[in-house]
């Protein structure tokens, strides 16, 4: 086909090609610069003191366990909210809602995805936290739970749009088959459509959780910023500090090249690897599902 490319066309083709490859380059660059600035932390602080329960950088205590547990408990809370509500909303939009309702709901959910996280954090401080403090009778409204509620809201649009795509791609014949056998629409949703869309829904959950772990501004503003180890469900109603919030709050105040600086980058490496794992698993679930669909069709 391409026997004789004129040279402007040749150059453009090469430019387009290298732009295509650029995504790989950027992921590699990000990882490289995180390692470059973060790995020195391992030389300056023992692994045993990194994996410790005390984060108090001023006195050189760099235990990141309280930060990891803070991220986990806030994310867990967010998932408990975003997964049922996200999947429920996706099922409603795709299977139950009349057409006009769908046309209203879809842009609204997209809008939630576009709300700046700092605006949600701002409302969290001014409205949600004072309300929860009085309503739940807590010493402070700035707790992991407040963060979970808002993070749930931030993760919902991701869950809804991916899960809805998955439900949409279930062939109509599956549903018609179930109806023809006498199943109600409700039974069809739970026993046919959702199981058929299982892998896509799983991807939705994974991506939603990934979104929640990585969220920074909202959690920094509303979770109270106390780096204490979360020990159980009680910690949900106490102030915590996540990995992301720690980086955002402290990076501005450290000297470049100090131990504290290196450790903050090290936390960045941990976050990068977590998001890498979440996304690789999520996308491999999709790929597997595609292959199975192709097998069924052939």
């Amino acid at each position, binding site marked *: 086909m391409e026997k004789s490319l004129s040279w402007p066309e040749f150059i453009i083709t090469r430019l387009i090609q290298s732009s295509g490859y650029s*995504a*790989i380059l950027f992921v590699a660059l990000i990882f490289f610069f995180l390692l470059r600035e973060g790995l020195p932390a391992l030389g300056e602080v023992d692994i045993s003191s990194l994996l410790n329960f005390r984060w108090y950088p001023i006195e050189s205590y760099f235990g990141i366990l309280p930060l990891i547990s803070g991220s986990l408990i806030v994310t867990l809370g967010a998932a408990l909210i975003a997964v049922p509500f996200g999947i429920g909303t996706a*099922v409603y939009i795709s299977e139950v809602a009349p057409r006009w309702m769908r046309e209203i709901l879809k842009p609204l959910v997209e809008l939630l995805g576009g*709300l700046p996280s700092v605006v949600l954090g701002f*409302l969290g401080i001014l409205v949600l936290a004072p309300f929860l403090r009085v309503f739940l009778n807590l010493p402070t409204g700035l707790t992991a739970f407040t963060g979970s509620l808002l993070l749930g809201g931030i993760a919902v649009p991701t869950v809804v749009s991916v899960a809805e795509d998955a439900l949409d791609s279930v062939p109509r014949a599956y549903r018609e088959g179930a109806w023809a056998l006498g199943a109600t629409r409700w039974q069809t949703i739970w026993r046919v459509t959702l199981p058929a869309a299982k892998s896509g829904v799983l991807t939705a959950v994974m991506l939603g959780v990934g*979104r929640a772990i990585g*969220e920074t501004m909202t959690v920094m503003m509303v979770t109270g910023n106390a780096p204490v180890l979360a020990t159980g469900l009680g910690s949900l109603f106490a102030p915590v500090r996540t990995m992301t919030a720690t980086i955002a709050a402290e990076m501005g105040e450290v000297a470049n090249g100090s131990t504290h600086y290196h450790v903050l980058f090290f936390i960045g490496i941990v976050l990068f690897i977590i998001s890498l794992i979440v996304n690789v698993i999520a996308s491999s679930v999709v790929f597997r599902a595609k292959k199975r669909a192709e097998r069924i069709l052939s």
Partner: protein
Amino acid sequence: MKLFAQNRHIVQRLGFIAITIMALVTVLPIIGTVAFILMKGGSAISLEFLSGFPHDGMRTGGILPAIIGTLYLTLGTALFSVPLGIAAAIYLSEYARDNQLTRLIRLAIINLAGIPSVVYGLFGLGLFVLFLKFGTSILAASLTLSIMTLPVIISTSEEALRAVPQAFRTVSISLGATRWQTISRIILKEALPGILTGIILGLERAAGETAPILFTGAAFFLPQLPHSPFDATMALPYHLFVISTQVPEMPIQIQYGTALVLLVFVLTMNVIATVIRSRARAKRQW
């Protein structure tokens, strides 16, 4: 089992009611949030607020430098991410073969989309601010935001390009056009509304982000507007963060007003994107 069979229509009705309530509980707070900020912030908006500089430790005056800063950052982000994003989308849709390398590119794009925004901030600090010595500047912050927006622009543009029917390509090539002529004069033109939608949605995200610019270009307070891309700048999201957490005795009016301006900025972009998309869908003849 028989009882269940008789009641299954009742079960369905209850189920539908429950799931409708769930969807409403998800969506109503969104409307509530937007309405609340529009209501509370409306009274703070005045010409002086929109066109003045902050005074008295930001407790009076306006937010002009933050508005201008966010405009600069959004434009700067567009400058880098739009050409690169569209070119990458063209590669994936028109040139890439289905092989291991293409799969790796797609995996990289998915991963870029999932990397936490604060990690982008660390990366921007390491590469642009320190290694390339751009300093905390509009340039460093825009470049950081560009890479963060790239996956959104690539995936929406690719989808738009792929939606153009194969026949358009076949006909153009058979009339003697080269591959690039086909892409630049036929395919891109047809896919333009979809690509625009993707660009605006990507930039909307960039305009609202705080964490990536925290250590790469955002300034707490500046007495004048930035003069060059190597200056730091104030920005609306960072300004809202500062005045709602860092400044004691901050008048609540100014906080709500700032939130309102940021929200309107982002919502306008969102609405434009939605309108472009639905108009293009209505007009499409293929």
